[in-house]
């Protein structure tokens, strides 16, 4: 029995710990939950234009909301967009929490949360990290969860540009969301806190309530693919972007008149959310002539500095799989696309000259095959600076085909305008060494390449970012590489000295939208690698195209009024986009962009 005692002591301790350990089990949230609509009812369906009450919109957010035209949701590119994560819990329907369990251990891996007219959202509970900043954004974003006492705390990032409510009140793709789910018996409260440096002046909190629903399932919303969209806007051509110009405020007048809400309060904003604003409302009620009682916008009252953080200058290369056989290498200047396969490696662009060793090392992580092709999207050094060394590290001649002209050095291919830009007539000094020049050029509208069994097309886009832009389309991988006609970190750069034109950029963006085909719910499908910035899809390009088109329409309207460039710049036609794309310093400022647009549009 002494031996029993020796065993029993530790066993008792183990059993005691096992039975008496602190509760780490979660409160069960799984099931169907019906929304209770006792708050903000008019805000939770189709709602009136001009009603931004209760939203901490900054001036950029309010102006963007006011320019929104509801016809935009009828465009082909937007008909299938589901409720975004920032709104899905507010929509008029039930939600469903489903546990995702690891079968062997019984461990909770994730919750699957179905929001109203939204897409199922995975809330990962297994401690996985959030993706790279360069990863694509989606309507649901990427969510991770943890339990704190009785609260499921969910953090969501990687959300597309979207909305707070369905009348144009915007959110940017820099938005992050924290949700706190707390169960009280058969009720569930979700407190959602949104942070958006671009369109909100402070974190936006709202609480949404649900009741356990034992009698039905949360609605399934079937599917919505591009084949299901219809022509809701007769005669609307590709590139038509419905919106309201700043002077056009008739659409927001109805709300303030009908509901006796002063326009200053209807605009939202941090100051309107706090009790002391009631005194302002009382003053406005006493003084009808107060300018804050008018819906007219007037010029922007504040500056809108850039809120988009600069790309991390770590000097390192980030490697992300895009899809199919295509990868993104970021961090070497302009983005580089890499296609790998049995034949070898194909690069779209080569980054800066100083980063070639690191680019080569990154390529070697993906393939030990030789670099066969380098395709240049245009002639700028941050995209072709690495041509010389990367080409010399490769070799042409895949598969022993006579037409491949086997030999040392990769084939460097571009539109002939690129060669013109970086070479010089005999006797003159060229901007780039001969070894960096394209070895093969094309002069027509397109050029085909077969690489690793995949059709790859170079599509010339005349007079856009430069006069020699090529869009590269990987047809099997379904990836489009745009070069700098789509710069996701900045307003489009117009290199007028090399034949670039503002209107040509809009044409080029529309062409990218023509090439891309989204999957169901206007997400994914053809993926897009921009010249700079994160991986995108069609809906991201649509947002960017819309932005450039709206700015075009504003500047055009100002030119029609006879305004000078200085007057146009002072009127800040880009104002609400400056936080995301603008810059007051560096090689491409907002003023330079407006100037390029003004000069180009004045010629028409």
């Amino acid at each position: 029995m002494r031996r029993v005692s020796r065993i029993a002591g530790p066993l008792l301790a183990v059993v005691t710990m096992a039975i008496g350990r602190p509760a780490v089990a979660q409160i069960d949230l799984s099931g169907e939950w019906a929304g209770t609509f006792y708050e903000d009812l008019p805000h939770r369906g189709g709602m009136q234009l001009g009603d931004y009450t209760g939203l901490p919109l900054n001036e950029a957010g309010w102006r963007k909301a006011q320019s929104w035209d509801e016809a935009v949701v009828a465009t082909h590119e937007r008909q299938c967009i589901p409720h975004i994560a920032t709104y899905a819990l507010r929509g008029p329907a039930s939600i469903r929490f489903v546990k995702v369990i690891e079968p062997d251990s019984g461990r909770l891996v994730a919750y699957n949360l179905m929001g109203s007219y939204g897409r199922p959202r995975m809330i990962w509970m297994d401690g996985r990290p959030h993706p790279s900043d360069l990863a694509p954004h989606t309507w649901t974003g990427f969510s991770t969860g943890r339990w704190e006492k009785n609260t499921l705390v969910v953090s969501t990032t990687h959300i597309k540009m979207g909305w707070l409510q369905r009348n144009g009140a915007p959110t940017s793709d820099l938005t992050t969301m924290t949700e706190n789910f707390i169960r009280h018996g058969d009720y569930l409260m979700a407190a959602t806190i949104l942070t958006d440096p671009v369109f909100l002046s402070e974190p936006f909190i709202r609480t949404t309530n649900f009741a356990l629903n034992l009698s039905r399932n949360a609605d399934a919303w079937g599917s919505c693919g591009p084949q299901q969209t219809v022509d809701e806007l007769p005669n609307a051509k590709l590139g038509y972007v419905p919106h309201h110009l700043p002077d056009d405020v008739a659409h927001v007048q109805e709300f303030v008149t009908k509901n006796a809400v002063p326009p200053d309060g209807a605009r939202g904003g941090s100051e309107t959310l706090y009790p002391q604003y009631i005194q302002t409302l009382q003053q406005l009620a006493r003084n009808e002539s107060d300018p804050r009682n008018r819906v007219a916008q007037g010029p922007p009252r504040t500056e809108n500095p850039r809120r988009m953080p600069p790309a991390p200058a770590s000097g390192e290369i980030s490697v992300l799989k895009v899809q199919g056989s295509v990868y993104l290498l970021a961090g070497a200047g302009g983005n580089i696309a890499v296609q790998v396969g049995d034949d070898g490696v194909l690069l779209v662009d080569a980054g800066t000259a100083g980063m070639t060793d690191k680019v080569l090392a990154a390529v070697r992580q993906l393939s030990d095959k030789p670099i066969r092709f380098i395709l240049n999207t245009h002639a700028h050094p941050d995209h072709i600076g690495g041509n010389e060394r990367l080409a010399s590290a490769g070799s042409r001649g895949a598969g022993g085909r006579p037409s491949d002209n086997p030999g040392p050095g990769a084939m460097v291919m571009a539109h002939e305008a690129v060669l013109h830009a970086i070479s010089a007539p005999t006797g003159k000094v060229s901007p780039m060494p001969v070894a960096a020049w394209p070895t093969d050029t094309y002069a027509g509208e397109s050029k085909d390449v077969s690489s690793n069994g995949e059709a790859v097309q170079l599509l010339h886009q005349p007079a856009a970012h430069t006069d020699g832009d090529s869009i590269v389309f990987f047809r099997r991988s379904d990836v489009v590489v745009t070069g700098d006609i789509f710069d996701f970190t900045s307003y489009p750069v117009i290199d007028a000295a090399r034949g670039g034109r503002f209107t040509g950029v809009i044409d080029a963006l529309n062409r990218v939208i023509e090439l891309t085909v989204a999957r169901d719910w206007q997400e994914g499908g053809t993926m897009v690698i921009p010249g700079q910035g994160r991986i995108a899809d069609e809906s991201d390009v649509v947002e960017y195209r819309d932005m450039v088109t709206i700015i075009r329409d504003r500047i055009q309207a100002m030119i029609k009024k006879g305004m000078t460039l200085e007057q146009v710049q002072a009127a800040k036609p880009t104002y609400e986009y400056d936080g995301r794309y603008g810059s007051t310093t560096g090689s491409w400022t907002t003023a330079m962009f407006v100037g390029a647009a003004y000069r180009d549009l004045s010629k028409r």
Partner: protein
Amino acid sequence: MSPAIGLAAHARTHTTRVTAALFRVFVFSWLVVGMAEVAAAQRGGPPAGPPPTPRASAPIDITGNWVSVVTEDWRWRMLTPRKGDYASVPLSVEGRKLADSWDPAKAAADGCKPYGAAAIMRIPGRLRIAWENDTTLKIDTDAGQQTRRLVFDKAVTPSAERSWQGHTAADWERIPQPGGQGVSIQQAAPRVGSLKAVTTNLLPGYLRKNGVAYSEETTVTEYFDRLAVEGGDWLTVFTIVDDPRYLSQQFITSTHFKREADAAAWNPTPCGGR
């Protein structure tokens, strides 16, 4: 019996004895620990000594200065809505009739009707929350200058007279555990987190300033939670208003407040002052 067989039999006997002893230890431990937890759970505190006071056992601290952040129902809370605008409120036929009879010209005479316990958390304003004693949390509002007392001591009963804030019985919310009152291998300590408050004994008042009424039969159930999130410290109040007379179903709202460092912005205003 061969020596080998005898050795094996001895080993079997020994193993059986050990197994039986271990089993007894296991059952004993299970019962002792499990029952101790059940007892602790039923008492709401550790097994020995007097139970801690509600103040000492508070799982969350909601004391301090808080300001309402009106991001929902803005035009019904920041402004006095127009007569007949009772959007979102599930009024009964009688309740609707009463709301339709409200006279804006006489709103000044409504006094503290919109500041009763069923609505006071929705009035834009500031809260000052503090322990009045070990069993009572006091909530002062600057809007309407009201005081609510959340009473944890169950021996305290409602006063004979109804009031705007009524009588509020408070408790720390406990999450039901598996195994009921029996002993389960999965038994765990009760989980708490929210402050639950049930208010009765109310004077009739308004859910909204435009005469959307609740009756003296109303019961208000509230859950107070505190959320500490990056960039903010929030208090949420989940409110269920039950009024068998003027509501056709429960009226459920949730209201949020942001912590303030001090009471510098405290602005006491009498009923009707805003």
